[in-house]
Structures are given as structure tokens and as C-alpha cells.
């Protein structure tokens, strides 16, 4: 069993985690076009090599980021999402002017 080092819970069996896909910048769902939203939801880089992904430690519902090489199946680094996402994501209301 592979061991993943969770930033919150330390080294755990990888079967305790789920991989939720690439780290991307989310467009504002109320301001972007359908095509932009569809691209964000459905289309992926699906690169071969070093990738950054959202992972979740399921028993503690803790979300964080994993950097790994998917050609060699090696985990390179795990870190809290606050390293990349430094401020809170705000959502505008559909009936509001974008600020």
C-alpha cells in the first residue's frame, strides 16, 4: 500500500484518500459563459508528468493539494491549499453587477 503524507493527519494509507482532479482557477459561475463553465467542469489537461491535484482525506474530510509524478507514480509533495489559495473565493449574485 502506498503511503500519502497528509498535511493534517500525517502519513496514512493512500486508500483513505480520494483524488478529485486538477487544481484550476474557478471562473465566477454567474459571470462566465456556458463554454467557460463547461471547460472548467469537464475539460482537463490530463497531462503526463508532474501534476498538482486536489486530494481529500475522507475520514477527516480534509482537502489539500498533492504534487505527484503520474509517469512514475511518485508523490513529490503534499501541502495545505492555503499555499496557493491565499484569499477567500467570493461569489457574486447573478442579479448583481460584477464588482
Amino acid at each position: 500500500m502506498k503511503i500519502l503524507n497528509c498535511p493534517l493527519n500525517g502519513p496514512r494509507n493512500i486508500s483513505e484518500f480520494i483524488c478529485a482532479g486538477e487544481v484550476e482557477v474557478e471562473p465566477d459561475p454567474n459571470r462566465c459563459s456556458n463554454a467557460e463553465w463547461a471547460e472548467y467542469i469537464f475539460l482537463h489537461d490530463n497531462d503526463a508528468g508532474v501534476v498538482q491535484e486536489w486530494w481529500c482525506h475522507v475520514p477527516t474530510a480534509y482537502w489539500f493539494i498533492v504534487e505527484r509524478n503520474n509517469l512514475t507514480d511518485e508523490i513529490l509533495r503534499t501541502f495545505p491549499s492555503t499555499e496557493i489559495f491565499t484569499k477567500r473565493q467570493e461569489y457574486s449574485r447573478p442579479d448583481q453587477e460584477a464588482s
Partner: protein
Amino acid sequence: MAFALLKYGLGFGKFERQFPKQKDLKDSYDVVIVGGGGHGAATAYYLARDYGITNVAILERGYLGGGNTARNTTIIRSNYLTPEGVAFYDESLSLYKDLSNDFDMNIMYSERGHFTLAHTDAAVRTSRWRAEVNKHLGVDSELVFPNEIKKICPQLNLSEDVRYPVMGALYHPPGAIARHDAVAWGYARGATMRGVELHQKTEVTGIKRSNGKAVGVETTRGTVNAGKIIQCVAGRSSLVAKMAGFKLPIKTVPLQACVSQPLKPFLDAIIVSGSLHVYISQSSRGELVMGGSTDPYGVYQNRSTLEFKEGLMAHMLELFPFLGEVKILRQWAGMADMTPDFSPVMGETPVDNYYIDAGWGTWGFKATPVCGKRNAEMLATGTVPEVLKPFRLSRFEEFHQVGEKGAASVGH
């Protein structure tokens, strides 16, 4: 067989090559097919046979049919969930039935009957739904219960004294298996016989574009121009599409499988359990061909894992307890190009003259003939055939998916 060996061994009789010798690449082709798996070879075959288009090159980075075509567990069925899916896969099934004759080569197509077991009320409900859609479209498919299953497949453990008792099953008598290599070789031989060039060990490394149009490909053996290009590269779909400049709704995830030591024939039916993540059939060699769900996370690697075997066997032994002493002979993996709606991505792309056959995930072997036939029609006539339209890439931005997850063989 023995006589043939002796005859050729002693130098009598002329040995006929199955495929012509590989030539140098030409400067240009009418159609370039990226990927020499079943889908690529079938596309070339129908282009040559039905449309007389033979100035065609299949470019394959490894060897013919060495990708997922070589790695799949060859289950062929058409008991899908959506009318679009059922029509499409059923066309493929009827083409399969004639392939041995078409090729003059035995693809060992063997109708076995296919059970999708249901272990929960929800799964019984989905089976009934599928059976009704199937029957409506003329596909032989029926919801059956343990007393009927027992008659058709007495080998299966139908005891209630297990963790997940069998509550019912979707029974699909036309469900079949076939020899996967023969499918790739038959198509490629039929194509090369008619003049198509098969270039193995030739990797496409770039797509040449001019004014939004694809005009050629760069390869490890030089550049070639192309009238039209189609990519049929399964697990590497996103990487090749990126060369052409667009993204796909695909995640590449390994799918593993294994076979047991050969046993005397005892299991004719194909047994699948979505909830238990198990499928099993007995090949004509007597090996039990077994598989489960896709890996929990993506890698671009064909490695095998112990977790896969442990997970699979725990459930397998509940269905067939008497297999406890049987040994595993081989284990392998392929890279599955998974889409969010469990349907493929077929047809036109944002790049003119550039077409796609992708998103075949864990279910594309059964679709090899229909893909080849309809790809050829599309490339020859320039219009997308009706049966391919529901699977267009643009369905995602139109939010018009073709949801087939309920008909996927195993849970994912």
C-alpha cells in the same frame, strides 16, 4: 498445424506474409490515422473496402493492437441505458457477427450470454430500466431473478448467506467474447491488402496546423502531410489532442485485469457485478479472464497492484467459492480514457480536417467495428453520421451528455 509447421520447416510451400513490409513514409496521404489499435485499423479497413480510399497511413507508436486492444477483456454487448447508446453498440454487435467471414480469419466470436448481477434494490431498478429500453429497441435483454439465473448458470453461488446476495440480474443472451488480437490483425490485414500503409514504431509528436486547419503530422520518422487526420489513441487521447490545440473531457486512469491458470471449460456465461466490482468469463483457452473497477487515481503507467487483486478476489470468491485454490497466471493493465458520462467522444473537433475517436475508457473494444465503419463514412463523405452525433465533443458545453454510467460494467 503440425503439418503446416513441417511443410514450411522443410522448405516446401511458400510462406505468405500477413502484412506487407514496412516502407518509408510518403510525403503525404489522403488520410492519416494516428494510433494502430482496433479503432484505427478498423477505420482504415472500411475506408479502403467501402470507399476505395487507400492512400492512407496508420501511424502507431508501438506495435499493431498493442494498446488497450491487446489488454481488454473482450466483452461485447449492447444492453446499454440510453437509446443513443443502445443503437450505436447494437450496430457494432451485428457487424461483429460477420467479421470472421469478412476477414476470412477466425476472430473466435463466441456468444455466451451476459449477466449483470444486481445486489441492491437500486440495481434491480436500473436493470429493469435497461431491459425496457433494450427491448423497446429490439435488443434481447431481460430482468431475471435467482430461480431463473440458477437454471442458466448453476455455477454461480446464489446463496443468501453472503455479504451481498444476488437479488436479480439483467440477462443479455447475445453477450459475447472474441479474440482481441484477431480483431486488430483482421482489420489491419484487410486494410494493408487493399493498399493502406501500416507504420509501426512511428510516434506522432506534433500536429501541423495552418489557418485553423490540420494539414499534417510530425513523427519520429519525419513529417507527413495529410488531407484529413483522425486520432484513435485511447489512453493518450488528451496528449495527442493537446498537440492539435484542444482539451478533452478525459481523465486517463489505469484499468487492470488478470487471468487464472487454464481450467477445463465450466463457465459459458459472462458474469458481471457492478456493485462487487467484478467481471469474469472463461476464454476459449480455459483461462478465467477477470477484471474489476478502474484504479482509484490516474497514472500514465501499466503497472499492476496487489490492492487490485485483493479487492477483486475477495468478491470473486463470494460468487464462485470453489475457485479458492485456483492460481493467477498473468496480470496487466491498460490506460483507460474515462469521460464523465461514460460515453465516447467522436467526430469533429475545433480543428478543421481533424477528427477524433476517443473517450473509450473501459468499454471500447465492443465498439471497434461500428467506430471503424462510421469513422470511414465521416472521413469519406465529410458529414458526421447520425449514430455518431450524440457523442460529439461539443455536447459538454451544450450540457447534453449521454449518461451511460448506469450501464458501465463495473462501478468506478
